[in-house]
């Protein structure tokens, strides 16, 4: 291939940056300058992607949900309604930015801006391609988890500063939920990290490439736990209790109007992309796709997988009702957490055997995959039965009048056998 390795080779954008570094080194630029230039380039690229994604995702989400809901979705502004996000943005910008009279003005205005920071920072460690990681931290996974927790504070800022009871309820729910879901998610990722032997995002992708498999096959349980946990982290159905529209109207961002609300809305979409990206990198091989990356640019594969995961999140939203807060907590603590712990335990034993006895990966990994899949099925089914609610046994279909003899409450008068117990006989 002629293009391979050239700076303008679009199949590997990281390569261009590498060339740029070489060129800068050739002219003797100090390390700081090189670092600043390449860092800025990457950051701008990511910001452009995030901006486009935030705009387009609202269209994608609305169209997809419309399809799920047997309607058409936005289709009037531009071709296929593609300009709908632009129209929305213009409308939001035009709107008056209201602020409640007794709100804490500074915190109230700061929250929608601050909430952008963790959302965007998460993109820094995503492995977009082979050499395309902006900040390839050696504690990438830890960094992502830490960012997830900071969101809690900002959501609480928004809810508390609004001086609204719904907002307070929403932020209370958000804190309770996010703190609970942190735990099973960390535990789930622990299994992944145990297998990969590294916390570096690129390292985890490299592990998947080396062993010619995605981590979802070794860690199916961790994948499910992380996916369900991330719906809670993202405030998406079925775990959107902190902004539950039918209960507390919009939760923590009820008082925000205009572009301040627009920011929360955009962050929601960006977060969904970020979490989809994390799932892609950790469980679905990132930019690596069984040799397909030879033909298609890695970053396109990554974005393709990312939107696949995002589609699952939209699907959840379109089809599932919402949990109640205590049910959601119970789900995290009583269901996800024990399963995650068992999963970590199993993964540790497998990896220990593998490393300790220096077995060949070709032998250990298929067995581990089979064992973990069986474990996932058994645990989910078994634990689900143990934790099953009492109503499971209750009949669900209403009785029909003609089928059975329905007695009236109380003693019922004793006159007449049939007419006494029944108001009417057909």
């Amino acid at each position, binding site marked *: 291939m002629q293009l391979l390795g050239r700076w303008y080779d679009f199949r590997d954008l990281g390569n261009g940056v590498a060339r740029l570094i070489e060129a800068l080194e050739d002219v003797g630029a100090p390390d700081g300058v090189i670092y600043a230039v390449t860092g800025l380039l990457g950051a701008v690229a990511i910001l452009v992607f995030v901006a486009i994604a935030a705009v387009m995702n609202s269209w994608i989400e609305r169209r997809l949900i419309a399809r799920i809901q047997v309607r058409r979705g936005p289709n009037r502004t531009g071709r296929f309604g593609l300009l709908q996000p632009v129209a929305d943005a213009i409308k939001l910008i035009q709107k008056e930015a209201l602020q409640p009279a007794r709100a804490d003005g500074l915190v109230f205005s700061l929250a929608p801006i601050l909430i952008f920071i963790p959302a965007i920072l998460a993109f820094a460690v995503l492995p977009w391609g082979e050499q395309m990681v902006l900040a390839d931290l050696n504690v990438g996974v830890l960094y992502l988890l830490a960012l997830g927790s900071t969101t809690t504070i900002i959501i609480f800022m928004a809810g508390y500063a609004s001086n609204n009871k719904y907002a307070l*309820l929403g932020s209370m729910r958000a804190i309770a939920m996010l703190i609970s879901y942190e735990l099973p998610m960390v535990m789930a990722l622990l299994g992944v990290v145990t297998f990969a032997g590294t916390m570096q995002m690129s390292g985890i992708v490299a592990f998947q490439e080396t062993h010619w498999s995605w981590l979802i096959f070794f860690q199916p349980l961790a994948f499910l736990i992380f996916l369900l946990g991330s719906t809670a982290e993202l405030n998406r159905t*079925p775990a959107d209790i902190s902004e539950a529209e039918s209960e507390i109207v919009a939760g923590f961002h009820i008082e925000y109007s205009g572009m301040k609300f627009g920011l929360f809305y955009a962050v929601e979409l960006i977060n969904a992309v970020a979490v989809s990206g994390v799932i892609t990198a950790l469980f679905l091989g990132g930019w690596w796709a069984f040799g397909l990356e030879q033909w298609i640019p890695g970053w396109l594969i990554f974005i393709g997988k990312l939107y696949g995961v995002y589609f699952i999140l939209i699907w959840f939203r379109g*089809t*599932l009702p919402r949990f*109640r*807060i205590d049910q959601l907590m119970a789900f995290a603590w009583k269901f996800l957490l024990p399963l995650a712990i068992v999963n970590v335990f199993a993964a540790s034993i497998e990896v220990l055997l593998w490393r300790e006895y220096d077995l060949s990966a070709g032998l250990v990994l298929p067995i581990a995959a089979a064992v973990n899949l069986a474990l996932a099925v058994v645990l989910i089914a078994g634990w689900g039965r143990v934790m099953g609610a009492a109503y499971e046994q209750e009949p669900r279909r*209403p*009785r029909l*009048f003609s089928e059975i003899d329905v007695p009236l409450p109380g003693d019922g008068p004793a006159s007449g056998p049939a007419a006494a117990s029944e108001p*009417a006989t057909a």
Partner: protein
Amino acid sequence: MAIDTEPLVVNIGPQHPSTHGVFRMRVTLDGERITDAEMIVGYLHRSMEKLAEERTWTQNIPFTDRMDYLAAMTGNLSYCIAVERLASIEVPERAQYLRVIFAELQRIASHAMANGTFVNDCGAWQTPLLYMFREREKVLDLFEMTCGARLTLNYMRIGGVAFDLPDEFLPQLRSLLDELPDRIAEYEQLLVDNEILLMRSRGIGVLSPEMAMNSSMSGPMLRGSGIAWDVRKADPYCVYDRMDFDIPVGHTGDSYDRFRVRMEEVRQSVRIIEQAVAQLPPGRHCADVPLNFRPPEGEIYSRIESPKGELGFYLISDGGPQPYRFHVRSPSLINLSALREMVVGQTVADAIVTLGSIDLNVGEMDR
């Protein structure tokens, strides 16, 4: 050191996505749990009862549309039956059948709305509602075809109905009836065994049979609690006594039972319409009723089974052109009698589900 706490008083409504209009519930919260609840209604009060005393008997029919605007047909029907009983007017047989057909179509539309919003209140993001709207639209199309209106129909007249069926009506009704059982089966497949829906609505808002009866509950509220009472069976009006249909009765009286009872009632409505169409006789669609219609002096309490429950009219005539007293027994208001008992002790989320399962309509509640 003890922490000072104070209860949080939250107004749920009048502007709230889940209060189905302008219903307002002032709840006192301890954390998320409701310790006290008070309902505040009247935001949609249009003094219909007073207005009706100054309009002629026929002019009052449009008011009954605007009470329960999601089930205008049954509102019309109940009023017309009450006036006919008061004035002893014989209604032609074809009109009776048409009334049954339209009342049951209205029940399908209203229950579709009720069930859709109920699942919406459980947190599903509009999807079930929009699915249910599909069938509701078809019913409204039939209404539009017949009387030109979709929501406030004003179709019933004292002595019959306003218009006979157009030619396209029966084929289109036929196709709707053919697909409805499949649709209901589809909804049941999608919804009734949904684990989250079960978690959210099983055992929530339980209304014991004794409580239901003592609180004058009616309609699916009463039947959901296990009391087999349906005015269509117990006190048949029109030609319901010639129809073969069943009354679904719930097991425990929780929100889920009410949801399922409504689902099953749609199925029974399809059965009734099938029979009514098969038996539909030719003839006139309205009796001769003078324009200067004056019922004789007297009073009547007459009720029918509307989708929300027992919709009754207490009418007093002094022999004049207008009613002397026009009182509506509105099921939406009276079904809220036990609201406080059902809601106190629940979390906010459950209270919304309970409220959704009551299927209130503020237009009818406030009148």
